[in-house]
Protein backbone atom coordinates (compact mmCIF):
# COMPACT_ATOMS: atom_id res chain seq x y z
CA UNK A 1 0.00 0.00 0.00
CA UNK A 2 1.25 3.45 -0.93
CA UNK A 3 0.94 6.44 1.41
CA UNK A 4 1.53 9.99 0.34
CA UNK A 5 0.59 13.62 0.06
CA UNK A 6 -2.77 14.05 -1.69
CA UNK A 7 -2.64 17.83 -1.46
CA UNK A 8 -0.74 20.68 0.15
CA UNK A 9 -1.13 24.37 0.86
CA UNK A 10 0.92 27.17 2.34
CA UNK A 11 0.19 30.57 3.85
CA UNK A 12 2.51 33.51 4.50
CA UNK A 13 1.39 36.88 5.96
CA UNK A 14 1.98 39.87 3.65
CA UNK A 15 3.98 41.97 6.11
CA UNK A 16 7.80 42.02 6.02
CA UNK A 17 10.68 43.73 7.79
CA UNK A 18 14.12 44.03 6.23
CA UNK A 19 17.30 43.02 8.08
CA UNK A 20 18.58 46.61 7.60
CA UNK A 21 15.61 48.00 9.54
CA UNK A 22 16.25 45.75 12.56
CA UNK A 23 20.02 46.34 12.39
CA UNK A 24 19.46 50.11 12.35
CA UNK A 25 17.79 49.95 15.78
CA UNK A 26 20.47 47.77 17.41
CA UNK A 27 23.56 49.22 15.68
CA UNK A 28 24.09 45.97 13.81
CA UNK A 29 26.06 45.70 10.57
CA UNK A 30 23.41 44.81 7.95
CA UNK A 31 25.95 43.60 5.38
CA UNK A 32 27.60 41.27 7.87
CA UNK A 33 24.24 40.05 9.13
CA UNK A 34 22.87 39.39 5.65
CA UNK A 35 26.10 37.71 4.59
CA UNK A 36 26.23 35.59 7.72
CA UNK A 37 22.57 34.61 7.85
CA UNK A 38 21.72 34.68 4.12
CA UNK A 39 18.38 36.17 5.13
CA UNK A 40 17.38 39.57 3.70
CA UNK A 41 13.90 40.06 5.13
CA UNK A 42 11.37 38.14 7.19
CA UNK A 43 7.58 37.83 7.36
CA UNK A 44 5.58 39.40 10.18
CA UNK A 45 1.99 38.51 11.12
CA UNK A 46 -0.77 41.10 10.75
CA UNK A 47 -2.22 42.42 14.01
CA UNK A 48 -5.08 39.92 13.69
CA UNK A 49 -3.06 36.90 12.55
CA UNK A 50 -1.71 34.07 14.71
CA UNK A 51 -0.98 30.35 14.41
CA UNK A 52 -4.69 29.52 14.20
CA UNK A 53 -5.40 31.91 11.31
CA UNK A 54 -2.25 30.81 9.45
CA UNK A 55 -3.07 27.11 9.96
CA UNK A 56 -6.63 27.66 8.71
CA UNK A 57 -5.54 29.56 5.58
CA UNK A 58 -2.86 26.94 4.73
CA UNK A 59 -5.35 24.10 5.28
CA UNK A 60 -8.05 25.76 3.17
CA UNK A 61 -5.47 26.19 0.38
CA UNK A 62 -4.60 22.48 0.66
CA UNK A 63 -8.26 21.39 0.50
CA UNK A 64 -8.91 23.69 -2.48
CA UNK A 65 -5.76 22.59 -4.35
CA UNK A 66 -6.79 18.93 -4.09
CA UNK A 67 -10.52 19.64 -4.56
CA UNK A 68 -11.09 17.43 -1.52
CA UNK A 69 -14.11 16.96 0.73
CA UNK A 70 -13.05 18.11 4.22
CA UNK A 71 -15.52 15.63 5.70
CA UNK A 72 -13.09 12.82 4.74
CA UNK A 73 -10.47 14.13 7.18
CA UNK A 74 -10.14 11.77 10.15
CA UNK A 75 -7.29 13.48 12.03
CA UNK A 76 -5.89 17.01 12.34
CA UNK A 77 -2.54 17.69 14.01
CA UNK A 78 -1.05 21.17 14.21
CA UNK A 79 2.62 21.50 15.05
CA UNK A 80 3.74 24.84 16.47
CA UNK A 81 5.70 26.43 19.28
CA UNK A 82 3.46 29.51 19.30
CA UNK A 83 -0.07 28.13 19.73
CA UNK A 84 -2.25 31.06 20.94
CA UNK A 85 -3.60 29.03 23.84
CA UNK A 86 -1.57 27.11 26.43
CA UNK A 87 -4.68 24.95 26.93
CA UNK A 88 -7.24 24.81 24.06
CA UNK A 89 -6.24 23.10 20.85
CA UNK A 90 -5.46 25.02 17.68
CA UNK A 91 -6.48 21.89 15.75
CA UNK A 92 -10.14 21.96 16.89
CA UNK A 93 -10.51 25.53 15.59
CA UNK A 94 -8.89 24.48 12.31
CA UNK A 95 -11.30 21.53 12.06
CA UNK A 96 -14.36 23.75 12.48
CA UNK A 97 -12.99 26.37 10.07
CA UNK A 98 -12.23 23.91 7.26
CA UNK A 99 -15.58 22.16 7.59
CA UNK A 100 -14.35 18.80 8.94
CA UNK A 101 -16.82 16.60 10.78
CA UNK A 102 -16.79 15.99 14.54
CA UNK A 103 -16.05 12.28 13.94
CA UNK A 104 -12.31 12.74 13.92
CA UNK A 105 -9.36 13.05 16.27
CA UNK A 106 -7.24 16.17 16.78
CA UNK A 107 -4.31 17.36 18.88
CA UNK A 108 -1.58 19.97 18.91
CA UNK A 109 2.11 19.09 18.68
CA UNK A 110 5.20 20.92 19.90
CA UNK A 111 8.78 20.00 18.98
CA UNK A 112 10.47 23.33 18.24
CA UNK A 113 10.81 23.58 14.43
CA UNK A 114 9.91 19.98 13.52
CA UNK A 115 6.42 19.62 15.03
CA UNK A 116 4.91 19.90 11.54
CA UNK A 117 6.84 16.95 10.11
CA UNK A 118 6.06 14.94 13.29
CA UNK A 119 2.39 15.56 12.46
CA UNK A 120 2.99 14.22 8.93
CA UNK A 121 4.49 11.01 10.37
CA UNK A 122 1.55 10.46 12.75
CA UNK A 123 -0.92 10.97 9.89
CA UNK A 124 1.07 8.43 7.81
CA UNK A 125 0.63 5.88 10.60
CA UNK A 126 -3.11 6.47 10.94
CA UNK A 127 -3.66 6.42 7.18
CA UNK A 128 -1.43 3.35 6.71
CA UNK A 129 -3.26 1.42 9.43
CA UNK A 130 -6.57 2.40 7.77
CA UNK A 131 -7.80 4.04 10.97
CA UNK A 132 -8.57 7.16 8.92
CA UNK A 133 -9.12 8.07 5.26
CA UNK A 134 -7.26 11.41 5.18
CA UNK A 135 -5.05 13.13 7.76
CA UNK A 136 -4.32 16.86 7.88
CA UNK A 137 -0.82 17.70 9.17
CA UNK A 138 0.05 21.36 9.71
CA UNK A 139 3.23 23.17 10.68
CA UNK A 140 2.73 26.87 11.53
CA UNK A 141 4.37 29.48 13.72
CA UNK A 142 4.48 33.16 14.60
CA UNK A 143 7.91 32.68 16.06
CA UNK A 144 9.43 34.89 18.71
CA UNK A 145 12.82 36.56 18.90
CA UNK A 146 13.75 38.81 21.81
CA UNK A 147 14.72 42.41 20.95
CA UNK A 148 18.40 42.56 19.92
CA UNK A 149 18.74 38.76 20.03
CA UNK A 150 20.23 37.05 16.95
CA UNK A 151 16.84 35.34 16.48
CA UNK A 152 15.11 38.69 15.93
CA UNK A 153 16.64 38.88 12.45
CA UNK A 154 15.06 35.61 11.34
CA UNK A 155 12.04 34.63 13.54
CA UNK A 156 9.14 34.83 11.06
CA UNK A 157 5.49 33.84 10.53
CA UNK A 158 3.95 31.30 8.16
CA UNK A 159 2.82 27.75 7.76
CA UNK A 160 1.96 24.87 5.46
CA UNK A 161 -0.50 22.00 5.51
CA UNK A 162 -0.12 18.50 4.05
CA UNK A 163 -3.08 16.20 3.48
CA UNK A 164 -1.97 12.58 3.78
CA UNK A 165 -3.88 9.72 2.14
CA UNK A 166 -3.52 6.25 0.60
CA UNK A 167 -5.73 6.36 -2.53
CA UNK A 168 -3.32 5.84 -5.44
CA UNK A 169 -5.59 7.84 -7.73
CA UNK A 170 -5.18 10.84 -5.44
CA UNK A 171 -1.58 10.71 -4.18
CA UNK A 172 0.37 13.55 -5.82
CA UNK A 173 3.62 12.68 -4.02
CA UNK A 174 4.24 9.25 -2.55
CA UNK A 175 6.14 9.19 0.75
CA UNK A 176 8.42 6.23 0.07
CA UNK A 177 9.95 6.11 3.54
CA UNK A 178 10.58 8.21 6.65
CA UNK A 179 13.20 8.05 9.35
CA UNK A 180 13.92 10.08 12.51
CA UNK A 181 16.85 10.82 14.80
CA UNK A 182 16.18 12.10 18.33
CA UNK A 183 18.34 13.01 21.36
CA UNK A 184 18.11 15.14 24.50
CA UNK A 185 20.10 18.20 23.36
CA UNK A 186 19.35 21.52 25.13
CA UNK A 187 20.25 23.89 22.28
CA UNK A 188 17.08 26.04 22.33
CA UNK A 189 14.12 26.29 24.72
CA UNK A 190 11.35 28.49 26.05
CA UNK A 191 10.12 28.04 29.60
CA UNK A 192 6.40 28.13 30.45
CA UNK A 193 5.16 31.74 30.65
CA UNK A 194 8.28 33.23 29.06
CA UNK A 195 7.66 35.44 26.00
CA UNK A 196 10.95 34.68 24.23
CA UNK A 197 13.05 31.55 23.74
CA UNK A 198 16.65 31.17 24.91
CA UNK A 199 19.34 29.35 22.97
CA UNK A 200 22.89 28.14 23.19
CA UNK A 201 24.30 30.45 20.49
CA UNK A 202 26.78 28.53 18.34
CA UNK A 203 25.89 25.37 20.31
CA UNK A 204 22.69 25.24 18.21
CA UNK A 205 24.91 24.49 15.18
CA UNK A 206 27.15 21.42 15.37
CA UNK A 207 25.66 19.42 18.29
CA UNK A 208 22.16 20.59 17.37
CA UNK A 209 21.22 21.22 13.74
CA UNK A 210 24.12 19.58 11.89
CA UNK A 211 24.39 16.41 13.98
CA UNK A 212 20.65 15.70 13.88
CA UNK A 213 20.00 16.64 10.25
CA UNK A 214 23.06 14.67 9.09
CA UNK A 215 22.21 11.56 11.13
CA UNK A 216 18.50 11.67 10.23
CA UNK A 217 19.28 12.12 6.52
CA UNK A 218 21.98 9.44 6.45
CA UNK A 219 19.75 7.01 8.31
CA UNK A 220 17.08 7.34 5.62
CA UNK A 221 19.54 7.18 2.71
CA UNK A 222 21.07 4.03 4.20
CA UNK A 223 17.67 2.44 4.77
CA UNK A 224 16.74 3.03 1.11
CA UNK A 225 20.21 2.35 -0.35
CA UNK A 226 20.13 5.75 -2.07
CA UNK A 227 22.49 8.71 -2.36
CA UNK A 228 21.98 12.43 -2.97
CA UNK A 229 22.31 11.79 -6.71
CA UNK A 230 19.05 9.79 -6.68
CA UNK A 231 17.07 12.95 -5.91
CA UNK A 232 15.99 15.87 -8.09
CA UNK A 233 15.36 18.21 -5.15
CA UNK A 234 16.18 18.45 -1.45
CA UNK A 235 14.66 20.48 1.36
CA UNK A 236 16.35 20.97 4.73
CA UNK A 237 15.11 22.88 7.74
CA UNK A 238 16.05 26.48 7.16
CA UNK A 239 16.63 28.54 10.33
CA UNK A 240 18.75 30.76 8.06
CA UNK A 241 20.12 30.44 4.55
CA UNK A 242 23.54 29.22 5.60
CA UNK A 243 22.73 26.05 7.59
CA UNK A 244 20.75 24.23 4.86
CA UNK A 245 23.41 25.07 2.25
CA UNK A 246 26.21 23.71 4.48
CA UNK A 247 24.39 20.53 5.47
CA UNK A 248 23.26 19.90 1.88
CA UNK A 249 26.86 20.16 0.65
CA UNK A 250 28.14 17.80 3.35
CA UNK A 251 25.50 15.22 2.38
CA UNK A 252 26.39 15.47 -1.32
CA UNK A 253 23.43 17.58 -2.50
CA UNK A 254 24.03 20.48 -4.90
CA UNK A 255 22.88 24.09 -4.67
CA UNK A 256 20.58 23.43 -7.67
CA UNK A 257 18.81 20.64 -5.77
CA UNK A 258 18.00 22.83 -2.74
CA UNK A 259 17.39 26.17 -4.48
CA UNK A 260 13.62 25.78 -5.24
CA UNK A 261 12.85 24.90 -1.61
CA UNK A 262 15.08 27.54 -0.05
CA UNK A 263 12.37 30.04 0.87
CA UNK A 264 14.16 31.40 3.95
CA UNK A 265 16.03 34.20 2.14
CA UNK A 266 12.97 36.44 1.75
CA UNK A 267 10.79 34.77 4.36
CA UNK A 268 12.87 34.13 7.47
CA UNK A 269 12.55 31.10 9.71
CA UNK A 270 8.93 30.02 10.06
CA UNK A 271 9.92 27.33 12.60
CA UNK A 272 7.35 24.49 12.41
CA UNK A 273 6.33 25.81 9.00
CA UNK A 274 9.84 26.04 7.54
CA UNK A 275 10.46 22.53 6.15
CA UNK A 276 6.87 22.16 4.96
CA UNK A 277 6.90 25.57 3.22
CA UNK A 278 10.18 24.50 1.56
CA UNK A 279 8.49 21.26 0.47
CA UNK A 280 5.45 23.20 -0.78
CA UNK A 281 7.69 25.51 -2.85
CA UNK A 282 9.39 22.43 -4.34
CA UNK A 283 6.07 20.68 -5.09
CA UNK A 284 4.95 23.91 -6.81
CA UNK A 285 7.55 23.33 -9.55
CA UNK A 286 7.99 19.53 -9.42
CA UNK A 287 7.13 17.24 -12.32
CA UNK A 288 5.85 13.65 -12.24
CA UNK A 289 8.70 11.25 -11.48
CA UNK A 290 10.77 13.79 -9.54
CA UNK A 291 12.22 12.61 -6.22
CA UNK A 292 12.37 15.04 -3.26
CA UNK A 293 14.47 14.50 -0.14
CA UNK A 294 13.26 16.36 2.99
CA UNK A 295 14.85 16.59 6.43
CA UNK A 296 13.39 18.77 9.16
CA UNK A 297 15.06 19.77 12.42
CA UNK A 298 13.59 20.65 15.79
CA UNK A 299 15.69 21.89 18.67
CA UNK A 300 15.66 19.81 21.77
CA UNK A 301 16.48 17.88 19.46
CA UNK A 302 15.39 15.74 16.55
CA UNK A 303 15.07 15.42 12.79
CA UNK A 304 12.54 13.72 10.49
CA UNK A 305 13.69 12.67 7.02
CA UNK A 306 11.37 11.79 4.11
CA UNK A 307 11.90 10.33 0.66
CA UNK A 308 9.15 11.57 -1.64
CA UNK A 309 8.33 10.65 -5.26
CA UNK A 310 6.06 12.92 -7.27
CA UNK A 311 3.31 11.17 -9.27
CA UNK A 312 1.31 11.98 -12.41
CA UNK A 313 -1.57 13.14 -10.18
CA UNK A 314 0.27 16.38 -9.43
CA UNK A 315 -0.97 17.59 -12.82
CA UNK A 316 -4.55 17.42 -11.47
CA UNK A 317 -3.91 20.00 -8.72
CA UNK A 318 -5.98 23.19 -8.92
CA UNK A 319 -3.89 25.88 -10.58
CA UNK A 320 -5.47 28.96 -8.97
CA UNK A 321 -4.30 28.19 -5.41
CA UNK A 322 -1.41 30.47 -4.41
CA UNK A 323 2.10 29.05 -4.76
CA UNK A 324 4.84 29.91 -2.26
CA UNK A 325 6.31 32.25 -4.88
CA UNK A 326 2.96 34.06 -5.16
CA UNK A 327 2.62 34.25 -1.35
CA UNK A 328 6.06 35.85 -1.13
CA UNK A 329 5.22 38.49 -3.74
CA UNK A 330 3.65 41.90 -3.09
CA UNK A 331 4.90 42.41 0.49
CA UNK A 332 3.98 45.30 2.81
CA UNK A 333 7.16 46.58 4.49
CA UNK A 334 7.15 47.70 8.12
CA UNK A 335 9.50 49.96 10.03
CA UNK A 336 10.78 48.71 13.38
CA UNK A 337 8.16 50.63 15.36
CA UNK A 338 5.26 49.06 13.47
CA UNK A 339 6.99 45.66 13.58
CA UNK A 340 7.29 45.96 17.37
CA UNK A 341 3.57 46.77 17.53
CA UNK A 342 2.68 43.79 15.31
CA UNK A 343 4.76 41.45 17.48
CA UNK A 344 3.41 42.77 20.79
CA UNK A 345 6.85 44.03 21.84
CA UNK A 346 5.41 47.33 23.06
CA UNK A 347 3.86 46.90 26.51
CA UNK A 348 1.42 49.48 27.85
Amino acid at each position, binding site marked *: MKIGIVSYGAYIPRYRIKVEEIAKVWNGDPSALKGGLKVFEKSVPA*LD*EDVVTIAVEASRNAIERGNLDAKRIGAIYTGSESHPYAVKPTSTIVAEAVGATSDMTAADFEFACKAGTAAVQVCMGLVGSKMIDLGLAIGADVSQGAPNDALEYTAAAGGAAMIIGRNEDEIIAEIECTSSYTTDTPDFWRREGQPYPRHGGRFTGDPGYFKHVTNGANSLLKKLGKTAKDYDYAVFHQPNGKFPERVAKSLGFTQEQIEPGLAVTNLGNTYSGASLIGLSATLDIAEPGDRIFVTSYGSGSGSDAFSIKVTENIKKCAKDVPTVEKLLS*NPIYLDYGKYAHHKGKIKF
Partner: protein
Amino acid sequence: MPVPRFWREQKGRYNLIGTYCKKCGKHFYPARSICPFCRRSGEIEDFQFKGKGEIVTYSVIHASSEDFDHLTPYILAIVKLDEGPCITTQIVDEPTDIKIGDRVKAVFRRLGSDGKAGIIYYGTKFVIDN
Protein backbone atom coordinates in the same frame (compact mmCIF):
# COMPACT_ATOMS: atom_id res chain seq x y z
CA MET B 1 -19.14 38.94 24.20
CA PRO B 2 -20.22 35.98 26.34
CA VAL B 3 -18.45 32.73 25.38
CA PRO B 4 -21.70 30.74 24.86
CA ARG B 5 -23.03 33.35 22.44
CA PHE B 6 -19.88 33.28 20.32
CA TRP B 7 -19.84 29.47 20.41
CA ARG B 8 -23.44 29.35 19.13
CA GLU B 9 -22.54 31.64 16.23
CA GLN B 10 -19.05 30.38 15.39
CA LYS B 11 -20.04 28.16 12.44
CA GLY B 12 -21.53 31.21 10.73
CA ARG B 13 -18.59 33.44 11.61
CA TYR B 14 -15.87 30.94 10.56
CA ASN B 15 -17.35 29.86 7.24
CA LEU B 16 -19.93 32.50 6.29
CA ILE B 17 -22.80 30.09 6.83
CA GLY B 18 -26.13 31.88 6.60
CA THR B 19 -29.50 30.74 5.32
CA TYR B 20 -31.42 30.52 2.05
CA CYS B 21 -35.15 30.47 1.40
CA LYS B 22 -35.97 27.76 -1.12
CA LYS B 23 -39.31 29.38 -1.87
CA CYS B 24 -38.25 32.93 -2.80
CA GLY B 25 -34.54 32.28 -3.46
CA LYS B 26 -33.27 34.99 -1.10
CA HIS B 27 -30.07 34.55 0.93
CA PHE B 28 -29.52 35.81 4.48
CA TYR B 29 -26.42 36.55 6.51
CA PRO B 30 -26.33 36.30 9.46
CA ALA B 31 -28.62 33.30 9.42
CA ARG B 32 -32.37 33.85 9.79
CA SER B 33 -34.64 31.09 11.02
CA ILE B 34 -37.69 32.56 9.23
CA CYS B 35 -37.80 34.15 5.77
CA PRO B 36 -38.97 37.77 6.31
CA PHE B 37 -40.56 37.79 2.85
CA CYS B 38 -42.34 34.43 2.76
CA ARG B 39 -43.06 34.29 6.48
CA ARG B 40 -44.74 30.99 7.45
CA SER B 41 -44.68 29.61 3.92
CA GLY B 42 -40.90 30.07 3.56
CA GLU B 43 -38.52 27.10 3.44
CA ILE B 44 -35.26 28.07 5.17
CA GLU B 45 -32.07 26.00 4.97
CA ASP B 46 -28.38 26.57 5.81
CA PHE B 47 -26.26 28.09 3.05
CA GLN B 48 -22.49 28.57 2.87
CA PHE B 49 -21.54 31.73 1.00
CA LYS B 50 -18.60 31.54 -1.41
CA GLY B 51 -16.88 34.46 0.35
CA LYS B 52 -16.62 36.74 -2.68
CA GLY B 53 -18.21 40.14 -3.12
CA GLU B 54 -17.64 43.84 -3.70
CA ILE B 55 -17.27 46.96 -1.59
CA VAL B 56 -20.48 49.03 -1.41
CA THR B 57 -18.96 51.69 0.84
CA TYR B 58 -16.22 52.04 3.42
CA SER B 59 -14.78 54.25 6.13
CA VAL B 60 -11.29 54.54 7.59
CA ILE B 61 -11.60 54.32 11.37
CA HIS B 62 -9.11 56.48 13.27
CA ALA B 63 -10.98 56.75 16.59
CA SER B 64 -12.37 53.41 17.67
CA SER B 65 -13.75 51.76 20.75
CA GLU B 66 -11.16 50.49 23.24
CA ASP B 67 -11.30 46.89 21.96
CA PHE B 68 -10.18 47.90 18.47
CA ASP B 69 -7.85 50.76 19.37
CA HIS B 70 -4.73 48.69 18.63
CA LEU B 71 -5.89 48.21 15.03
CA THR B 72 -6.36 51.90 14.10
CA PRO B 73 -6.38 53.15 11.46
CA TYR B 74 -8.43 50.31 9.95
CA ILE B 75 -10.98 50.05 7.17
CA LEU B 76 -14.56 49.13 7.93
CA ALA B 77 -16.69 48.40 4.88
CA ILE B 78 -20.09 47.23 3.77
CA VAL B 79 -19.50 44.32 1.42
CA LYS B 80 -22.22 42.98 -0.87
CA LEU B 81 -21.72 39.25 -1.21
CA ASP B 82 -22.22 37.81 -4.70
CA GLU B 83 -25.28 35.93 -3.45
CA GLY B 84 -26.95 39.16 -2.30
CA PRO B 85 -26.62 39.97 1.41
CA CYS B 86 -24.59 42.96 2.60
CA ILE B 87 -22.34 42.57 5.63
CA THR B 88 -20.28 45.00 7.69
CA THR B 89 -16.68 43.82 7.85
CA GLN B 90 -13.08 44.87 8.17
CA ILE B 91 -10.89 45.06 5.02
CA VAL B 92 -7.43 43.90 6.14
CA ASP B 93 -3.82 44.20 4.92
CA GLU B 94 -3.94 47.97 4.55
CA PRO B 95 -5.09 48.53 0.95
CA THR B 96 -3.75 51.96 -0.04
CA ASP B 97 -5.98 52.54 -3.06
CA ILE B 98 -9.30 51.06 -1.92
CA LYS B 99 -12.32 52.03 -4.04
CA ILE B 100 -16.07 51.45 -3.96
CA GLY B 101 -16.71 48.53 -6.28
CA ASP B 102 -13.42 46.74 -5.52
CA ARG B 103 -13.70 42.95 -5.50
CA VAL B 104 -12.96 41.30 -2.13
CA LYS B 105 -12.59 37.76 -0.80
CA ALA B 106 -13.01 36.27 2.67
CA VAL B 107 -10.05 35.46 4.95
CA PHE B 108 -9.83 33.91 8.42
CA ARG B 109 -8.65 36.32 11.12
CA ARG B 110 -8.90 37.14 14.82
CA LEU B 111 -12.01 39.21 15.50
CA GLY B 112 -11.08 40.04 19.09
CA SER B 113 -10.51 38.58 22.51
CA ASP B 114 -11.70 38.92 26.08
CA GLY B 115 -8.53 40.55 27.39
CA LYS B 116 -5.23 38.70 27.75
CA ALA B 117 -6.66 35.72 29.66
CA GLY B 118 -10.07 35.37 27.99
CA ILE B 119 -11.26 33.51 24.92
CA ILE B 120 -10.02 34.52 21.45
CA TYR B 121 -12.73 35.11 18.86
CA TYR B 122 -12.02 34.09 15.27
CA GLY B 123 -14.02 34.67 12.13
CA THR B 124 -14.20 36.18 8.68
CA LYS B 125 -12.77 39.45 7.42
CA PHE B 126 -12.06 40.45 3.81
CA VAL B 127 -9.07 41.38 1.64
CA ILE B 128 -8.93 42.98 -1.78
CA ASP B 129 -9.16 40.18 -4.38
CA ASN B 130 -6.44 40.99 -6.91
